[in-house]
């Protein structure tokens, strides 16, 4: 076990975890933040996306002890206008990938509040949705400011 210091959604945590533990595992199992989903656990699908200092990061292949900076999960973005935009546009089916989609989208609109469809497709291509909500996700991000 090794000491782990994390700042998550503005709160500071000091934990013990074996070196080699993924950030996704710590968030879900140690901090109870189950909004971050694990779907492939090897960095291919984007369901586990969180932000570190505002930059999207695949938490399932990020070693928790290597994280420097502020972690933001979906739990820290629950009041973000993108949530309403996703619901309004029906950009959710089974919902398992959706928190990761919102986290990626929030990073996109923070850097670029008026993204074009091309920019949305580029920024969101790492988040797989097996239900195929993509057209509605694009619509949600295009209309996120209401």
């Amino acid at each position, binding site marked *: 076990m090794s000491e782990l210091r994390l700042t998550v959604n503005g709160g500071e945590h000091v934990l013990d975890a074996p070196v080699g533990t993924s950030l996704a595992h710590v968030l879900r199992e140690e901090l109870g933040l*189950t*909004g971050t989903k694990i779907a492939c656990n090897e960095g291919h699908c984007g369901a586990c996306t969180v932000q570190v200092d505002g930059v999207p990061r695949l938490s399932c292949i990020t070693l928790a002890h290597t994280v420097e900076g502020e972690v933001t999960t979906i739990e820290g973005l629950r009041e973000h206008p993108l949530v309403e935009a996703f619901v309004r546009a029906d950009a959710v*089916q089974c919902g398992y990938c959706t928190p990761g989609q919102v986290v990626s989208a929030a990073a996109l609109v923070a850097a670029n509040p008026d993204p074009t469809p091309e920019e949305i497709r580029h920024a969101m291509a790492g988040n797989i949705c097996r239900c195929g909500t993509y057209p509605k996700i694009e619509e949600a991000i295009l209309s996120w400011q209401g």
Partner: protein
Amino acid sequence: MARLIRTEKEVEGRFEEVWIVVEEDPLEQWPAGPLAVVGRDAPRKDGHERVRGEARYTADIKLPGMLHAAVLRSPHAHARVRRIDLAPALALPGVRAAIGPGEAPGLAEEAGFSGAAVAAVAADTFRQARAAVEAIEIEWEELEVVLDPDDAVRRGLLTDEEPRRRERGDVDRAFAGADVVVEATYRTQTVLHNSLETHQATCEWQGDTLHVYISTQYIWGIRHAVADALGLPEDKVRVVCEYMGGGFGSKNSPDEYTFVAAELAKRTGRPVRCALTRREEHTSAGNRNATIQRLRAGATSDGTIVALEGEFTNSVGWTGWNASTEGPMQMLYDCENVRTVTYGAKLNTPPMKAFRAPGFVEGTFGLECLVDELAARLDIDPLELRRRNYASSNEGTPFSSKNLEECYRMAEPHWERRHEVRGRSDAVWKRGVGMASQIWYGGGGPPSYAWVRLGSDGRATVITAMQDIGTGTRTAMAQIAAEELGLPLEHVEVVLGDSARGPYASISAGSSTLPSMGPAVRAAAADTKRQVIEIAAQRYDLEERVLDIRDGTVVSTDGNLSVPLEEVVGLLDEAQILGKGARGPNPTGMSVLTFGVHVVEVAVDVETGEVVVERVAAVHDVGRIVNPLGASSQVEGGIIQGIGHTLSEERLLDPETGRVLTTSLDAYRMPTIADVPEIVCEFVDRPDEHLTNLGSKGLGEPPIVPIAAAIANAIRDATGADVHELPISREEMLRALREADERAREKEKRGAPAAV
């Protein structure tokens, strides 16, 4: 009154004769078109929970003291366990129990495919359980491996006792009399469901009751199968699934992970979670099986299809069933002479499981490509050829409703675009437009039950132990109840997902959720409303027939009474009104089917073989549309999944060992947002007047049915090339282009004056 009937029950295109108790449903259908709530766009009732990451999936359930299981799987495609020693696993840190072949259903000595479950371990952490599985000592006796479906059929290695043969008319004579005969062999690949939440269950014993938290499409099927396998009374098994991360047909049964969790929980006295990894999902959780389709069609020069013949081989695998790949050929067109034979090849490959319109997706690719090849030979417009062979009955059985002709009419403006689309071709990128029709089931059926509870605050809750696989079930059920009760949508909640909290509900598969459950919910809401009206009539001394509920207000038709609903039900204080409802029978002597047509625009790079789908127009006939917003999402999702099936997805096996090579999501390529074309989605939206009090059919599966053929037909329109295999990889595209080139050169040679 309850009525016992003997009827044919259909799920995923499979029929069985069963006894069913049905209750008469006296409700008349609502008028067609948008109503107060039904037929209008509704964002999901559970949208915020899902989007904000608050919805609790099976993967999120963490019970006190919960252990984690890992499963040992066969590396061999066919082998028998000669010796197994679990002791080294049990000696490792954190390990609490281990079980081997025969100690839980699904753990077997004979492994029929690489990835078959053999043994399992429960430990404090998943990492410890994995390490322990690695430590199990096992010796295998390797057995003969059969991987080639044609070889299996030749040797009689079939999943059914006999191949399925169906024949009508005089096929040989009809072919002999045909002016034009086209013949082709189509091959479709194995594809994986890849639900983002992997297959998993967490089991806990409380006394002699087993609590099963599982990601499933069929709560009651799980309850029955688990009780049956473990010898428990059914009420001693409670099944919970409030939210699930996708299924697509693969989560209809409990399977080894559930039994492993139940057995290890029993042995350790603690809750046990058994969840597949993504790689196990690719080796062991089922697939849409590969097919080989050897097809022939004959027509007279006026475009009448006079004969159809197909030999279909389904590469079913070690387990699974022989889906009706021949279904579209049997049903889509009005043809008197049809002969099909369907073989289910039993192979040492991972098992087939139902995957979104099993059989019909594959069979429609073959048939609808063949029909376009026929149209090309006859020099008849593909839409016109389809119209000339329109089936007005299902081999003499009337359709409960069929508006495919209307779908074709609505598709015309999209079809007309083909001249303009072709005109945008250049030397490298060739553009074209193709179409394909859709036929599939989706009528649902009884039994299904629902309750509606109306509180003294005038708010209602629909209660039924169904599941929501992500199609917007809660929303559609709430809309139906709100419409019937005369309540605003936000005054209706839906409680589902727990066999201990509500009546029996049907499977969420076969596009049956809405047509099975919707009518039961409406009946329960009507029963509730009836009681409110009875109470109001007594309270206000009016006749029941003049009373109604509109937008949360009890009104009389003469306009004299208008009181908030909560004033009437408020009389009950804390008590509630409980209504119950059942799904009535399907119409007797009728075929209940869904129809549609897709018109697809593609661009093909003739130098590299790259295919880009640029636009899809989808027109579907599924009866009444309850939620147009949610319905459009279903259509888009089916089309996108179908584009993956058509262009990029393929599970590959090592041809020597039978091991899965594509075990990760970088090797198995599903569509991303960057692969999505413009999608136009339209509905006929006419209630099926013979089908239930709702007139709605299901929509989960229809949109994935015609897309592959429509893409292939657009490719032919663009390039003249006939693609015959899925996925349409660059290799397949370039092969088809070369073949088309050779054919054109041959034709030129034949057409040219003979050389001296």
